[in-house]
C-alpha cells in the first residue's frame, strides 16, 4: 500500500492560507448584525439583530444599487454569451490560417489589460473631443455624446466595453468545441446538399449546445456581480443614479463613510444570494449538461 501522508503534507500550505485569508474574514461577517464601532471591535460592539439588513431596503440609494446591479449584470451576461458564440462561429469559417491566428491573437489581448488601463483608454477615446466623438461628428454631423457622464448612456457604455474586453477570451471554449466536431458530419451534410448556412444551423450550433448550456447556467451565479473594477473606474457622481452597483455602494457607504456594519450587511446579502444562485446553477449544469467542476 502506498503511503498517503505526503499528500496531506502537500495540502498544508493551501489549507493554512485558506483558513486565514478566506475563512478568517467570514468571522467578520458578525459585524453585519452589529452597530460596529472600530474602537470597540466585534466583541465589544452592540448587537442590533437584522437592523442593518432592513436598512438595505429603506435606503433608496441601496435599493437603486441593487436594481442597477441586476440590470447591468444581466445585460452583460446575455450579450457576453451571444457575442462570443457568433464570433467563434464566424472565426472558424475563416480558411486562411495566418489571418485566423492573427485575429485570434488580437482579440484575446484586451482580456489581459487591467480595467484601470481600459478606463484610461476609454476616458481618452470617449471624451467629448475624443476619437469616437470626432468620428461621429465628422460622419453624421451630430453633437458630441457624453458617454461616461450621461446616466442614460452609462449602462450601455459599461456593457459594450465589457464585451469589447472579454469576447475574445470567451470565444476560446467555443472555438475548441467547434474544432472538436467530427468532420464527417459536415461531409455527410454536404453530400445531402446542405449549404454552409444550413451546416452551421444543423451541425455547428447543435454541437455547441452543451457548452452553451454549461456557460449560461454557470453565469447565473454572477447575477449580482456587475464588475466592481470596471464600474469603479468608469463611474463618477453624474451617473450614480444608473451606474452605482452593490460593490461600489458598499465601498462608499462603509470604507468612505464609516458605516462598517451596514456595508458588511449589504456585502453579506449579496454573497448569500450569489451562493444560492451558484449552487443552483451548478446543479442545473450537472443535470442538463453533465458538467462537474472537478
Amino acid at each position, binding site marked *: 500500500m*502506498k503511503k498517503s501522508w*505526503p*499528500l*496531506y503534507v*502537500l*495540502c498544508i*500550505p*493551501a*489549507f493554512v*492560507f*485558506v483558513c486565514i*485569508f478566506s475563512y478568517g*474574514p*467570514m468571522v*467578520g461577517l458578525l*459585524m453585519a448584525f452589529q452597530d460596529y464601532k*472600530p474602537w470597540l471591535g466585534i466583541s465589544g460592539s452592540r448587537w442590533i439583530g437584522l437592523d442593518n439588513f432592513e436598512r438595505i431596503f429603506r435606503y433608496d440609494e441601496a435599493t437603486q444599487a441593487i436594481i442597477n446591479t441586476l440590470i447591468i449584470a444581466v445585460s452583460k451576461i446575455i450579450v457576453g454569451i451571444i457575442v462570443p458564440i457568433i464570433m467563434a462561429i*464566424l*472565426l472558424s*469559417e*475563416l480558411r486562411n490560417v495566418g*489571418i485566423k491566428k492573427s485575429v485570434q*491573437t488580437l*482579440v*484575446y489581448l484586451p482580456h489581459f*489589460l*487591467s480595467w*484601470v488601463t481600459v*478606463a*484610461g*483608454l476609454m*476616458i*481618452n*477615446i470617449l471624451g*467629448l473631443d475624443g*476619437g469616437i466623438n*470626432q468620428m461621429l461628428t465628422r460622419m453624421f454631423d451630430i453633437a458630441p455624446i457624453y458617454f461616461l*457622464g450621461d446616466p442614460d448612456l452609462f449602462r450601455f457604455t459599461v456593457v459594450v466595453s465589457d464585451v*469589447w474586453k472579454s469576447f475574445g477570451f470567451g470565444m*476560446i*471554449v467555443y472555438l475548441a*468545441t467547434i474544432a472538436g466536431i467530427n468532420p464527417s458530419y459536415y461531409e455527410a451534410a*454536404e453530400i445531402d446538399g446542405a*449549404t454552409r448556412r444550413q451546416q452551421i444551423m444543423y451541425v455547428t450550433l447543435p454541437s455547441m449546445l452543451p457548452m452553451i448550456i454549461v456557460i449560461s447556467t454557470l453565469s447565473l451565479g454572477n447575477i449580482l456581480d456587475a464588475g466592481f*473594477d470596471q464600474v*469603479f473606474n468608469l463611474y*463618477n457622481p453624474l451617473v450614480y443614479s444608473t451606474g452605482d452597483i452593490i*460593490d461600489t455602494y*458598499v465601498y462608499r457607504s*462603509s*470604507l468612505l463613510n464609516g458605516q462598517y456594519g451596514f456595508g458588511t450587511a449589504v*456585502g453579506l446579502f*449579496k*454573497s448569500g444570494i*450569489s*451562493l444560492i444562485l451558484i*449552487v443552483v446553477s451548478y446543479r442545473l449544469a450537472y443535470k442538463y449538461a453533465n*458538467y462537474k*467542476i*472537478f
Partner: protein
Amino acid sequence: MYHKTTGYRVFSVFNYAFMILAGLVCFLPLLHLLAQSLSSKAAISGNLVSFWPVGFNMDAYVKTFSNSNFISSMWTSILRTVLGTSISMFILTCAGYALSKEFRGRNVLMWFFIFTMLFSGGLIPSYILVTGLGLKDTIWALVLPGAFGAYNLILLVNFFKTIPKALEEAAFIDGASFFAILSKIYLPLSLPGIATVSLFIMVGHWNSWFDGILYMSDASKYPLASFLQTVVVQSNMQNMAMSQSEVEAMSEQSIKAAQIFVSTLPIIMVYPFLQRYFVKGIVLGAVKE
C-alpha cells in the same frame, strides 16, 4: 460544393473584412495611446493624432521615467508580481498535485477549498483582518490575501489528472518518493498548465490596483496599477466634478498615455509567447467530457 457558390463567396469576403476589423478594434485603442504618447502637446490638443505620432518626441517618456513615484511604484509591482506568483504557484502546485490523487478525505478537502470561490467574507471583514494582522503598508498585504485561488487550483488539478497513472507507478516501483515524482514527472509534463496558471496569476498581480489603494496609506507605496488609477481615473473624476478647463487636462495627455503604455508593455510582450499554452490550458482545464 458550397465553397463555389456565389452566396458563400460574398459571405466569405464580408466575414474576412469583419473579423479583421474586429481584431483591429481590440488593438487600435492601444495604438492610439502609443501615438499620443509620442506626439507633441500641440498636436494632441489640436486633435491631430490618430494612430501615428504627430510632432514626434520622447518628452512624455523622459518625464515618466524621471517621476520618482512612477519608478518606485513600478518596483513595487515587479516585487509583488515575483513574490506573489512564486508563493501562489508553490501553494497551488503542492495542493493541486495532492488533490489529483485519491486519498481519504480528498473530497471534503476539495470542497473546503472550492467553497472559498462561492462565498467570501467580503470587503470590510477582509480589510479588518489584513489590518489586524499588521500587514497594512507592507508588500505582504498585496501578496498574501490572494495567494490561494480556487479557480487556479481546479485548473491545476484537472491538468495533473491528465498525466497517465502508469508513469507514476513505474517511478514508485523504482523507489521514487512523492516529491521526486512531483518535481521530475508532473512539473515538466504539465508545463502548459503551470504556464497558464502562472500567467493568470502574474497578470492578476500586475493589474491589481484596488488592494494597493486599500492597504497602502501613502501613495509612495502604491503598486503601478494603483498609481495609474489615481493619475488617470481619479484626476479625470476631479476634472469632471470641478469642470476644470479641458486645456489643462489635455496638456498632460501625452504623459498619461506614456504611463499607461509603459505599464501595459510587459503584458503585451509576454502574452503572445504564452498564448498557445493558455488556450490549451483553458480548454483542458475547463472542458471536460
